[in-house]
């Protein structure tokens, strides 16, 4: 590409951020607030807060078919539908069409995603947990993969910083394996959940069941234009109140308010431009997906926040004239160690009691049972596998569907609706997955996406440690419901495949050595120190907690480091 001096100046920024999801939004906010002229490149369309949430206030009767999409529509979303709860009539505009954005699978991998400004921060589960030194030290203590180059103390002030801004509702519990944060008022648990909390603590060694820690504004809290949660539980459609954290409601408006942000949707990055002489990136090449034109943009620093698989893909497509497997591949680890939490194992039960009790409002949250296996200082918690798992779940009363399998003929529905079903509760675990070098992704240049760009091929599976853990995830869930006096307890042992938890991690891991990791302790690519990878790709292990809060903290920390070193002319 020939580009003259004037055009080059116009296309030059202090910083470029690739991606506008949870971590990209944070990079944009931090960099612009520190004075950097920042270009944010988003592969998909723009989504403006409130005005681009087309279904946010649509009443339920406007989705008379249970909010399902039609059989014909399903043909476009065959992989996105695999979770069973993602693509609905009211949310289908957030998910990619698999027909437009295909990927290959050596073994089944459910890669669930959306390409638009805000990315998955619009549809995320909002659970926000700190990781602890139990997580950051595990690889080193157990001789697994490589050691994290940071510890909890490195991230703690950044967790504080992030929580202050996004707002996290939760209950402090004083657990070392799940550090407390700066919480807004917790959401309430219902009668049965409180009962189970008491029984589990009493019969299972003080085990904690707490309310989920979620990025919602609660109490009388507001944040700028963001209002408090109104408990509609329609979050995945986009919240016009901005009550839960999303890039669209929070970080991107904050970045825009500085006057330093340029947001460019429809910009698919094909590669990072690299200068081998000074071993730095100089910018990026993009394809404008509306015009088909290839363009170049330049900056002193580049934040890669295109999601775990997306970020690694961009790196793998960059500087291939020097490293055939891409920028950051000199360690042999780029694209490897692909992780996700293994999921869909637990138990459900029906409870006899509290018939005279109900709840009011809708709670966009669940309960959380923090990890209780393989905890240091607790010999009884030791199991024959490494790491552990945490549960999410909820208790509720049956709706009108409980009356379907009953004798109701001739009874007015007006009578039936006065009888909610019995209380029931389900808990499902998210289990830690170990980083395996052989769980990997590769670039497929033969199969192109709708933009004519290469696709990825995924090859990952659960192994012995995860399969052993899954048995315990079921047995421990059954035990908790049994000690809580449920009259019927059913183990939940559904098939689980990588990707289903939508917590992909690990493809450009942090480490202490360029020989065994892709990025260093400041998230800098070893081979290009002005390139920072701060999304899920950078995770060295997966812990069992939802990871997004950690991506945000890592991003804020790396952005601070980048700006400090830019000022010192170190980058």
């Amino acid at each position, binding site marked *: 590409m020939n580009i003259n001096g004037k055009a080059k100046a116009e296309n030059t920024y202090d910083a470029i951020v690739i991606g506008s999801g949870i971590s990209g939004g944070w990079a944009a906010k931090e960099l612009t607030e520190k004075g950097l002229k920042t270009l944010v490149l988003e592969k998909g369309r723009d989504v403006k807060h409130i005005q681009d949430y087309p279904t946010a206030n649509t009443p339920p*009767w406007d989705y008379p*078919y*249970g909010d399902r999409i039609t059989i014909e529509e399903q043909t476009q979303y065959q992989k996105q539908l695999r979770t069973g709860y993602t693509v609905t009539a009211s949310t289908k505009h957030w998910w990619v069409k698999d027909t437009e954005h295909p990927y290959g699978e050596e073994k089944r991998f459910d890669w669930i995603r959306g390409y638009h400004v805000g990315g998955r921060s619009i549809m995320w589960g909002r659970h926000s947990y700190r990781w602890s030194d139990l997580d950051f030290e595990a690889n080193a203590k157990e001789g697994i993969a490589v050691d994290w180059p940071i510890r909890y103390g490195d991230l703690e002030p950044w967790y504080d910083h992030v929580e202050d801004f996004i707002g996290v509702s939760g209950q402090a519990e004083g657990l070392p394996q799940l550090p407390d944060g700066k919480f807004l008022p917790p959401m309430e648990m219902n009668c049965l959940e409180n009962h189970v909390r008491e029984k589990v603590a009493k019969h299972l060694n003080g085990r904690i069941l707490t309310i989920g820690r979620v990025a919602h504004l609660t109490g009388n809290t507001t944040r700028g234009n963001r209002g408090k949660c109104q408990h509609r539980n329609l979050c995945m459609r986009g919240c016009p109140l901005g009550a839960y954290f999303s890039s669209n409601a929070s970080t991107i408006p904050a970045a825009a308010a500085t006057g330093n942000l340029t947001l460019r949707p429809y910009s698919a990055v094909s590669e990072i431009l690299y200068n081998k002489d000074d071993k730095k990136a100089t910018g990026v090449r993009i394809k404008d997906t509306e015009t088909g034109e290839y363009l170049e943009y330049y900056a002193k620093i580049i934040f890669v926040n295109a999601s775990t698989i997306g970020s690694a893909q961009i790196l793998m497509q960059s500087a291939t004239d020097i490293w055939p497997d891409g920028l950051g591949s000199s360690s042999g680890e780029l694209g490897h160690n692909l992780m996700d939490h293994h999921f869909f194992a637990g138990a459900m039960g029906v409870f006899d009691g509290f018939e*005279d*009790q109900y709840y009011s409002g*809708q709670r966009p949250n669940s309960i959380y049972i923090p990890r209780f296996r393989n905890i240091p200082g607790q010999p009884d918690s030791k199991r024959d596998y490494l790491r552990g798992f945490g549960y999410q779940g909820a208790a509720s009363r049956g709706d009108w569907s409980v*009356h379907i399998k009953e004798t109701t003929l001739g009874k007015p529905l007006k009578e039936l*609706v006065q009888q909610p079903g019995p209380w*029931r509760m389900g808990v499902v675990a998210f289990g830690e997955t170990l980083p395996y070098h052989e769980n990997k992704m590769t670039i497929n240049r033969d199969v192109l996406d709708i933009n004519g760009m290469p696709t990825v091929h995924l090859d990952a599976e659960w192994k012995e440690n995860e399969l052993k853990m899954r048995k315990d995830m079921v047995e421990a869930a059954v035990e908790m419901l049994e000690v809580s006096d449920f009259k*019927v307890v059913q183990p939940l042992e559904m098939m689980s495949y990588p990707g289903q938890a939508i917590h992909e991690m690990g493809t450009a891991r942090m480490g202490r050595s360029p020989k065994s990791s892709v990025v260093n302790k400041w998230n800098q690519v070893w081979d290009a120190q002005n390139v920072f990878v701060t999304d899920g790709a950078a995770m060295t292990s997966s812990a069992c907690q939802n990871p997004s809060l950690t991506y945000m903290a890592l991003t804020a920390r790396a952005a601070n480091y980048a700006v400090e070193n830019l000022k010192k002319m170190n980058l």
Partner: protein
Amino acid sequence: MDRRTALKGTGILLGSSVIASASGLLMQSCMEKVKTTDLETVVLKKEDISTIANIIAHLIPDSGIPEAVKTAIPLYIDGTLEKYASREQRQEFEIGIKEFNANCTNSYGSEFSKCTPEEQFNYLKDMESDFISAQGPTFYGTMKQWIFEAFFQTEFGITQYLSYNPLPGTYTGCVPMEQIGKIQHSNDAFKL
């Protein structure tokens, strides 16, 4: 593990109380037969609509429900079969409704919509009993599911029959049932 009862699928959450309905027997005797309407449908034939409308009359015997709400239910079933059901499910429906009427003819001498309300009620009672004891779906069970689904997704069903608040403002975990009074509408996307 004594209390653990392994049941298949989500049937565990449907409950299984079987209580004979004396009020239902009284009610059916004064029920008028439902007239077949001139609905424009894609999959359902006129005789299917007639059969379904008569099932609805027994499953939703409430007075005071606007005719438009009841009329919407066969349309919902037609829409389900047209756009949301697989080819196999459509075939199952077509076979199921034929068998439903053939069995009714065997028992009562005429197909379902031409039976007296008493005959219809007695036939459906047998169908309901079969469904409750069946491990898998039955035609009657599927119709009941779809009819309830359709009703509780109408604006009338949600706002008049369920406890519905589009902007609750808060969530209170423990509230006496008598304060709520009826089943709440839920927006839960992920149901266990």
